[in-house]
């Protein structure tokens, strides 16, 4: 079976890969680092005081006072990695987490920050990381796309829209496929419009005509490929639903992932986590998960973590949605021996300010925020980089998005400097001109 992503081109891997797939949990809207993975006791001490350092302009121009975290931090696991009570389940997997506390972004609004985080450019038109991985690695999945974005429940396109998942100037084969896993039709037009027999008859007659046509033009490869894609498409009609069908999973697994959880949102997000594992098992290279709107609806569906107000209820609500399923995903991958070759990424497009917006919200902070990576050879129970004592600006070992992705590529066996594509007069790459591999992050 030919893969879907550019079958004729060899893989661009140049060293033995530590990992073969990526699962990216996108915390759309912006996770507050000082409430989750970046412990700043000074915030409690200075609660209610103005920031004693210059504050950069924010979009809503409503800079408030220092706001302590409503969640207690505790050392977790053998490593003692501090994780707040916001994520009690993920905390149990602390020894698997490689927390980067010094992430930076060049953009402070959602659309640009999302596109920037995914592609390295704040404007649309450039390939997304998932497309780059598909381009660099090709597909090892039969009849499944190599780059998949999952949706369930009321999950929506994040602000910035689908251009953040774009193949940009890479061939269309590397664009994201959006699987709405709880719908009858996970992909647009996937549901057969005809009974299988009629479809097969159509394809068989079509092929006859097509071969005649192709012979009349001296047999073109392109036409050949187009004919073959009908076979693939035909099979995808069953292979995609099969990957999304959770009936075969055990009761234990279902419970572990939160599929029996009292919250609908948790159940829906849990399905994404479980389908992600199934897709990775089937060889999909890059799976991205999409958060749903929280039950308290304390933001919009596009950026559900965006708590400019009521952070306490909003973040708690969102954490309840993802905490158990993500922890389950880590545990399940580990149990199956898959965590060694699967990289799980957990990050928002930026973080949130240590000072309040209004009385109980936090504004966007692109200057120093936290992301974590697990599996795929990344160090577990490890933290890297530092923000200042308020958790506002990065002060040590800043990690820009170029180096972040360069390191992911490295673990996938790709040399980030060599995975390039020539477009409009220059060679582009995901790590642009600035990125380098951060070897300290990997074992």
């Amino acid at each position: 079976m030919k893969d879907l992503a550019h079958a004729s081109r060899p893989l661009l891997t140049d060293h033995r890969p530590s990992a073969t797939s990526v699962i990216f949990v996108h915390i759309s809207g912006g996770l507050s680092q000082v409430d989750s993975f970046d412990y700043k006791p000074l915030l409690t001490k200075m609660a209610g005081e103005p920031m004693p350092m210059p504050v950069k302009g924010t979009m809503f121009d409503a800079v408030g006072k220092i706001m302590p975290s409503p969640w207690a931090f505790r050392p977790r696991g053998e490593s003692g990695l501090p994780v707040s009570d916001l994520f009690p389940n993920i905390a149990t997997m602390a020894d698997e987490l490689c927390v980067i506390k010094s992430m930076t972004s060049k953009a402070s609004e959602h659309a640009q920050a999302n596109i920037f985080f995914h592609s390295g450019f704040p404007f649309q038109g450039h390939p997304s990381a998932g497309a780059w991985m598909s381009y660099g690695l090709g597909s090892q999945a039969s009849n499944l796309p190599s780059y998949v974005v999952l949706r369930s429940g009321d999950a929506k396109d994040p602000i910035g829209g689908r251009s953040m998942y774009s193949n940009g100037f890479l061939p269309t084969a590397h664009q994201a496929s959006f699987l709405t896993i709880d719908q009858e039709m996970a992909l647009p037009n996937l549901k057969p419009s005809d009974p299988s027999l009629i479809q097969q008859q159509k394809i068989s007659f079509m092929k006859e005509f097509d071969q005649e046509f192709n012979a009349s033009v001296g047999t073109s490869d392109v036409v050949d490929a187009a004919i073959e894609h009908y076979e693939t498409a035909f099979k995808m009609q069953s292979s995609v639903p099969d990957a999304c069908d959770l009936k075969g999973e055990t009761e234990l697994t279902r419970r572990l992932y939160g599929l029996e959880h009292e919250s609908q949102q948790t159940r829906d997000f849990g399905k994404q986590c479980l389908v992600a594992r199934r897709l990775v098992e089937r060889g999909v290279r890059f799976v991205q998960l999409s958060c749903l709107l929280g039950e308290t609806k304390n933001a919009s569906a596009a950026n559900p973590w965006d708590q400019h107000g009521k952070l306490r209820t909003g973040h708690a609500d969102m954490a309840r949605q993802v905490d158990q399923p993500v922890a389950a995903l880590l545990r399940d991958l580990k149990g199956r021996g898959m965590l060694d070759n699967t990289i799980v990424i957990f990050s928002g497009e930026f973080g949130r300010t240590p000072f309040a917006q209004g009385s109980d919200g936090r504004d966007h902070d692109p200057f120093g925020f936290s992301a974590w990576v697990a599996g795929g050879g990344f160090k577990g129970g490890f933290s890297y980089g530092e923000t200042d004592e308020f958790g506002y600006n990065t002060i040590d070992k800043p990690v820009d998005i170029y180096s972040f992705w360069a390191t992911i590529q490295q673990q996938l066996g790709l040399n980030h400097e060599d995975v390039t594509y020539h477009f409009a007069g220059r060679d582009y790459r995901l790590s642009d001109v600035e990125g380098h591999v951060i070897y300290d992050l990997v074992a």
Partner: protein
Amino acid sequence: MRTFGKLALSLAFCCLPSLVASEKVEFFESRIRPILTQECYECHSERHKAKGGLLLDSRPGLEAGGDTGPSIVPGNAEESFLYQTIMHHVEDEDMRMPKQGAKLEDSVLADFKKWIDDGAVDPRNTAPSDEQLAADTDWGAIAARRAQHWSFLPVPSRAVAEDEIALTRQIDQLIEKQWDENAVSPSALADRWTVLRRLNFILTGLPASLVEQQQFSDLWDKEGREAAVASKVDELLASPHFGEKWAQHWLDWYRYTEGHGGQGDPKNERAHEYRDYVIRALNDNVPYDQLVKEQIAGDLLSTPRLNEDGLINESRIGVAQLRFVEHGFLPVDALDEKVKFTDNQVDVITKATMGLTVSCARCHDHKFDAVSHADYHAIFGVLASSNPSHRPLLESSQIDSQREALEAARKQLESELKSSWLNEVKAPEFRDKLQSFVDSYAPTWETLPPANDYQDHLTLGDYDALRFLRNQRESTDLPKSWAHFKKKVLSAKADNVKANEAMTKELIDFRNGLPAGWYQRDGSSRAVPAGELGMGVDDEMVAMSVLPAGLISHASTTQEDAAIFSPKFEYYDGAIGANWSGGGFSQFRYVVQNYPMVGSIYRYFPATDSGELLTSSDKFEFWKGEKGHLQFNTRRLAPAPPRGPNRPGAKPPRFHPTPRENGSWFHVSEVRLLKEEDDRLKPALFSSEILFHAEPDFTTFPEALVFYQQQLLRVLERWQTDAFSDADALFVTEFLRANILSRRIGEVSPGVEGALTKLRSVEASFADIARRTAPGVVDSEGFDQALYLRGNHKTPAEIIPRGFIDVIDDEDFQLGEESGRLQLAEKIVSAGNPLFDRVAVNRFWSHVFGEGIVSSVDNFGRTGKQPTHPELLDVLAFQFRDDGFDIKELLRSLLNTTTFQRQSTPTATAAELDPTNRLLSHARIRRLDAEGVRDHLLALGGALDLRMFGGQTPPPLAETSDKRRSLYITRMRRGRIGLMDVFDMPVPSSTRGMRDASTTPAQSISMMNSPFVKLQSERWAESHSDKAAKEAFGLLLTKAFSRPPSSSQVGRLMEFYELQGADAEALAHTAHLVTTMKEFIYLR
């Protein structure tokens, strides 16, 4: 200022004899060392890196070689690995040097061969010093060498072809010459159906109808291939659908989009006017150079191009493309945002017109091409010297010719109103009206639209004349109350005037005309004394106010849009205040770094449409240190739609014109820059002021009413004289706003209504067009850009005068206040810019033949591809200019070639010797583009709606219900339609000369299962249900493939049809089957 001038590029590069030792060193120093330094050191020097283990900055390094072994075999260039890599004679593409496919010029390669063959003499014992390095990387020398790249060299003069036929023949000869040279034999000419299908889809994007197929075939039989093709080409070039199909290409070149991008992708209002303008221009065969000039400076041309009836200024619409930039959502770094969107303008203009990636020189000199960091900023300065705006489509001379009539009608209206109001006031009932206003507690007064939705619009409130009557109607001692009122008003006035003076940093007065440095590109705003009418903007209101002295936009008519702009200034930790008013949601904006949208930290004031005079203030200290400007504009000229209120809960004003639209206007008396951020301008003009000129002669309330009546009478009488004051205007306005004086149709005198009807009838001759605007820009005061070191806008360095790319033309633009866009446009299209002509003809060629003579159509630089037929490219380029850039003539000469009309099956020699068909010995198989696929499906089902222009359908609706050509689907940046995406419609971000034509399973899934696709086959089946199946399938194949079907194919469809049960459903299945066939979406 820039470091080098036009260089004499005259080094002799050929015929190099053998050299003696000193000459060999000299040769190395002058020819080899600079190349090594400029092209190789970045990756192969001690200072930078040693890629592949290779160092090229000293002889020892060169001799040692790299990981793959020695780099040089002295005396034998062909055997030297270094030479093989720069000749690209190596298998591994990554080893082709310099990196990124940028092959060195032939002359340089010849030098290297000679140098190595002569023993590779190299005097460099060690890596170079800083001084040596600086000397070797002098930009002047680099640019001079790079300007030798083929595309920069002049297009050689030659004899021009006498006519199209001669040119057509010449094209064929130049193509054939290469077949002969390469011993490749061409394929035979294609049959009539193949040629017709190609012509139809390439020229109009639509299939030929059955009748057209028959006619073409008849003509072919009667007059032969050549004549039939020539006549068909003429016919299709004259079709209105020609403009639609080629506009699609043009829109890709200029990344046409109707969304501003960023969060929510707000709509770029009326951007579709640009699309329609391109369609019209191509159908009218506007010369290519003229059209390109319009893209950059259409608003500045001394004689703009008008449409047929002279109403529309077509040229000005061209600059809409400067607005197809992507905007961030309320960016906190406004300058960063400006640098980004201006960069996109530089990028698109230089790629689209010249195939040059000038934007690559944003952070440093171009790595491969003769474009310096300074060149980039020279062009950047030109484009940054304009403000975003909307531009009217209406040609202003149309209003000029009506101006006298308009102003006469306005005068008539004014005089009718005056006498109508005088009569009203004189009538005894007037006092009853006044009394009833007072009695009613004036609910209308209280419910006037809140003035302060936006920041601090102040109403005059407590000090208004009528307020006294309302508050004091129970007063027991009216003279005492009056004395108190007078004292209160006068002291408030004195206090406010004093306070305003104290807080004023700068007073900008509009009462004597446009203040120094301010400018106006659209409209005819002018200063007027107190007493002009503030016109109504709906169908009922005649006039909402009488205006104090100031500048007004509607001296002639409220249908004439206007915008006035301040010079740029730097925001500080202060505030702004203005005394102004307006109607029809005109706006007062304070703009930061040309960001066109509003919301949150980007604020503005809308007029309130109630007739009140506004005193608006807002602090702007957030933007301290940023540059910006102030502007007043009528609603339609807002640079982008107002997107949201400044305060939660307030409703944003409408943007869309409505049928009730009677225009928009503004009036401004003064603007003040205020010292402190908390400063708020206070009202310094009260309507009650005029009451204190007279001695009060009332003690009872009825007497007070008489007093007011007399005062109003006096004011109205004064209106006929020069003595009418600002306070008088305010006084009358107050009676209007309280509805004591009539201002609505039905209430005013018949004379007023007659005068208004007259005014509307004069306006009617242009009002429909006046409602249409397009996004655009206006020249602001031009400035020279400071060079941003490493592209960082926070590190400005020396000032770069506005100009062009030095190696092409380094003449000073000699600019005054103007932006330089006109000069830039002239330079780009001038005969001295060979890139312009070559890139142009190559673009048209590429869409005729499926690939350019230079296949990298958007990149003619060193990293682009070489022309497959250099001489042909130059013949076409030379001819195109000589023919006055006649697009249709160029296309005609290409389409009539036999080269175009060949079969797509390669001959054996072609398949073997030229598998990629560089020599065009046969035609290229091509897939229809996204629009073509969708239009073809609609056409097959018989549903295609061929109406042209205007009205748009947003994408989600379009997929299922819209039947118009795909070109008219609203092209947003987000929320696009699936079918278009899977068939490679590009995301609008930069110039895209050639689209991808991918084949993916997603396409197959769409064709197999999409309800849209199935719907078209059902439509076809429905309309053919009354025909015999066999006949129907003959028609089906003819329509789908534009050719008569073979009987065996019809037979096979019959077989399939019967297999499906030979019923109505089976008919639709059969049509669906045909749409999934490759021949349906490919051109053979």
